[in-house]
C-alpha cells in the first residue's frame, strides 16, 4: 500500500491538515475524512458537476482531483458560502426561486454560480447557460436555476 501522507490546505478560510492515500480524491476526503458532506457525489467521472468546489478560485470537479494535488491550495466548498447564519445572495435566490427539487445538484450549481459571478458579475442568459453547462440537474430543470442566477446577480449588483 502506498503510504498515507499529510496534506495541508486552507478550506473555507481555515488551515486544515489531513492524512490521505494517493488514490483518494479530493471529493472522498472532503466527505469521508473531513465530514464535509455538503459537496455531493454524482457521476464520479467529471460529467455532472455535483462535486464542484473552488480550488484556488477556479471551479473544479473534486471527483477528478486527487486530494494530494490539493496540498498547499485554497479550497472553498458549499459549507463556506453562507456568512454565519445568513445565506449569501446565490443561496437565497435558489431558495426563493425554488431552483431545486431533490437538491443533490444544488451545492455544485451554487459553487459554479459563485465562480461565474466572480468572473462575470452581470452575465446574459446565454453566458449563464454556457458557464453552467458542466452541472446537470435531473429534476427541476434549468429555467428556474438560470432565473435564480440572474436574480442573485441583480441583487449583488444592487448592493455593491
Amino acid at each position, binding site marked *: 500500500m502506498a503510504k498515507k501522507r499529510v496534506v495541508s490546505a486552507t478550506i473555507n478560510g481555515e488551515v486544515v491538515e489531513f492524512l490521505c*492515500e494517493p*488514490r483518494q480524491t479530493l471529493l472522498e476526503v472532503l466527505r469521508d475524512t473531513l465530514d464535509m458532506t455538503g459537496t455531493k457525489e454524482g457521476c*464520479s467521472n467529471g460529467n455532472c458537476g455535483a462535486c464542484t468546489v473552488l480550488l484556488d478560485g477556479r471551479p473544479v470537479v473534486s471527483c*477528478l482531483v486527487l486530494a*494530494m494535488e490539493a496540498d498547499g491550495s485554497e479550497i472553498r466548498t458549499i459549507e463556506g458560502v453562507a456568512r454565519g447564519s445568513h445565506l449569501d445572495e446565490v443561496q437565497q435566490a435558489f431558495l426563493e426561486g425554488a431552483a431545486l427539487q431533490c437538491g443533490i445538484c444544488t451545492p455544485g450549481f451554487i459553487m459554479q454560480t459563485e465562480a461565474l459571478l466572480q468572473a462575470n458579475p452581470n452575465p446574459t442568459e446565454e453566458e449563464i447557460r454556457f458557464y453552467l453547462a*458542466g*452541472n446537470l440537474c435531473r429534476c427541476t430543470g434549468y429555467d428556474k436555476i438560470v432565473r435564480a442566477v440572474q436574480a442573485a446577480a441583480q441583487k449583488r449588483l444592487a448592493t455593491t
Partner: protein
Amino acid sequence: MHDFDYERPVSLVEALSLMARHNGHARPLAGGTDLIDQMRLGRHQPGALIDVKRIAELNVLAADADGLHVGAAVPCCRIVEQPLVNQQYTALVDSCRIIGGIQIQSRASVGGNLCNSGPAADSTPSLIALQGVCVIAGPAGTRRVPVERFCTGPGQNVLQPGELLVEICFPPRPPHSGSHYRRLIPRNEMDIAVVGVGAAVELDESGRTIRAARIGLGAVAPTPLWAEEAGALLAGQPADDVQFARAAEAARKIVSPITDMRGTREYRIHVTGVLVQRVLRAAVARARGEAFTYLPGH
C-alpha cells in the same frame, strides 16, 4: 481506484529520473481529467503518478523569437486568458473554450489532451493547423515531433517509456493570418466531436489571395489528421467559396471515419467538407481583421 504512488517533482530532471525509476509503470499527471477517470475504470493501472504541475518548463505560456511555447501542463483556462494567444492563435482558444465544461477547463491541459491521443480530441486539429511541434524530453535527450505525427492510434502516441511531453511550440504567426476551430455536436456544449476541424490561413497584403493554409481534422480517423493536400491546394488561390469547396473535397478524400452512435461514416464524411468550408471562411475573416465572433453551438 487501485493503489498507486504519487510523486510531485519540481524540476524536469527530477521528473525524468522518477519516470526512469518507475521503469514504464508511471504516468505523468497534469489536469487528470482523462487519466483519473480512466484509472477509476481500470483502463490504466500505473504504479505511480508523476504530478508534473510544479515543473516550470511544463508551465510556460509565453512567446519569444521562436514563437509561442505552451507548456504541457498549462490548463485551458490559462490559455484562453492569454492576450497573445487570443490575438494570434485563435484556433487554440476556440478549442480550449469547448473542451468539457468550465470545471474541466480549470484543470485539463492541451498537453494532456494530446497525450491522451483520442481521435476526437478538440485541441489537436488546432495544434496541427497552427504548426505545433511537440518537445519531448527523455533519457536520451530531447527530441521534436510535429503534432501531426504524434498520435499513432486511438489512445496511442510516439512517447516511449520514460519520455515526457514538455511543451508544444508554435512558429510566430505571419501578418494577415487567421485561424479557427469548430466541431459538430448535437448539443451546444459538453459533448464529444462528431467531426472537428481546425484551420489556419495566411493571406497576401491585399487580403484576397491565400498564401498558405493548414487544415487539421478530428474524429474522422484513428488519429487526428493533417489534411496536407487540402491546404496545399489553396496556396496562391483566391480566398473564395470556390476554392474552399475544392479544399473540402480534398479533405473528404483522406478521412476514414467509423460509424457509431455519434454519426455514420457517410455523415461524418459529409460534415467534414461542410466544416472545412465554414472554418476556412472564418479563418479568412479573421485574417482580414473582420469582426468574427464564434459562439459555440451556433
